[in-house]
């Protein structure tokens, strides 16, 4: 089964082509990595998948749904962790969880999810007082609270210390083992090598390479990434 199908996705901002004829598919239960430098078109692709932006061309299906036409149904089956998205400073962890749980028909048990993300002790702490890693874990928890079939995690581990990053990797693996398809947007090649079944490397709005990290990475994924993305268009 295909969890995400993107075909010929194109998005322009004025004269600038942000995403240029991008195609890929993600199988159900897969962890798929979307890599690329800043401005490569990753976030625009994510926005189109989540129904936040309208593509100029192309066809997208997420869990069999069209992000524009079936927007409301998609919101029930797609969990999104957005880059730099915050919460009100004075909202506590448990309040945020209860609020987001109220949006969904069959939410996950908030206490269980808090325990899984090691946030139980912080349940009455206000958002402002959380550390970077705790904020990040909370945003993952909120992305999962609606029991999504597909989760998009955008720069999940940016700003985390090495230990917190490893814990988060374990978490992503656990989530996948619960049957959730995951699309991971990351800058860390080690993370992609470790977690992703397949990766797409984007450059200048196009898919420059697509395959398993082992097949792409010679000698390492990072070398392959640098080779593919360091050239400039003439």
């Amino acid at each position, binding site marked *: 089964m295909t969890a995400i199908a993107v075909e010929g996705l194109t998005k322009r901002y004025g004269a600038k082509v942000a995403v240029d004829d991008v195609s890929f598919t993600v199988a159900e239960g897969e962890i798929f990595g979307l890599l690329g430098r800043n401005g490569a078109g990753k976030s625009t692709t994510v926005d189109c998948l*989540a*129904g*936040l932006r309208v593509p100029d061309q192309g066809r997208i299906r997420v869990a069999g749904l069209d992000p524009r036409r079936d927007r*409301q149904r998609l*919101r*029930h089956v*797609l969990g*999104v962790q*957005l880059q*730099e*998205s*915050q*919460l*009100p400073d*004075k*909202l506590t962890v448990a*309040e945020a969880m*209860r*609020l*987001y749980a*109220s*949006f*969904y028909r069959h939410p996950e048990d908030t206490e269980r999810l808090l325990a899984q993300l090691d946030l139980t002790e912080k349940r009455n702490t206000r958002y402002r007082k959380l550390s970077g890693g705790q904020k990040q874990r909370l945003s993952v928890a*909120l992305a999962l609270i*609606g029991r999504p079939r597909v989760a998009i995690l955008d720069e999940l581990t940016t700003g985390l210390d090495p230990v917190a990053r490893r814990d988060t990797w374990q978490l992503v693996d656990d989530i996948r083992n619960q049957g959730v398809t995951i699309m991971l947007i990351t800058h860390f090649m080690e993370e992609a090598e470790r977690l992703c079944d397949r990766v797409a490397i984007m450059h200048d709005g196009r898919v420059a390479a697509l395959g398993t990290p082992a097949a792409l990475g010679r000698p390492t994924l990072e070398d392959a990434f640098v080779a593919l993305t360091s050239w400039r268009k003439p």
Partner: protein
Amino acid sequence: MKMLTLTEARLLAREPLALFWGLAFPMALLAVMGVSAGRVDGVSLVTIYEPIVIAFVSVVFGIQGLPVQVAAYRERRILRRLATTPAGPARVVGAQLIVSLIVVLAATAGVLAVGRLGFGVPLPRQPVGFALVVVLAATATLALGLLIGALAPTARSAGAAGTVLFFPLMYFAGLWTPQMSETTRHIGQYTPLGAAAQALRDSMAGGWPHPAAIAVLGGCTLACAAAATRFFRWD
């Protein structure tokens, strides 16, 4: 929606500064006028100021509170995040409007209570007309606040715009010069807060608010709400 509204109410309850300016300060201001026992042309200061203070409450929540909230939610990408949930971003803005309206009504009741119990100012003699004007003044300022929140790119600029607008709006309500010249009063009738203060004064004294005042407040509500809807940026 219920959960969002409760959450917004809880968050407001955690903002001591907003509650001070919107709830405590208006009552304290009226009490100061009452204690000073001043009179202008035979009318006590507290009677003159009560409608002005009630208009002030709407401005605090509508023009100063709401735009900053809305712009901050956009700036912090909270609206964008909500757009990916089944709730959508519009409902949280709706929740903020509901909470603001309820607090404006509560603060108005508080001001009336201070005037009545503290200084013997009679309750509005035309209660239906008075209630109508209070609600319309609140919707007019909230709609204007929503428009500021829709256009301001950041919470800071929304706050600045609210503060800049505060002075002319409250000037025509008579906050600084309750006894206005004929010309000023004439111009003021066509501003939302000038119209609100005059209509509140009329209905407190027992008359129906002037239709022109109702038209100004209703028109401001509709025009600003329409413009805010048209120009609202979710991210």
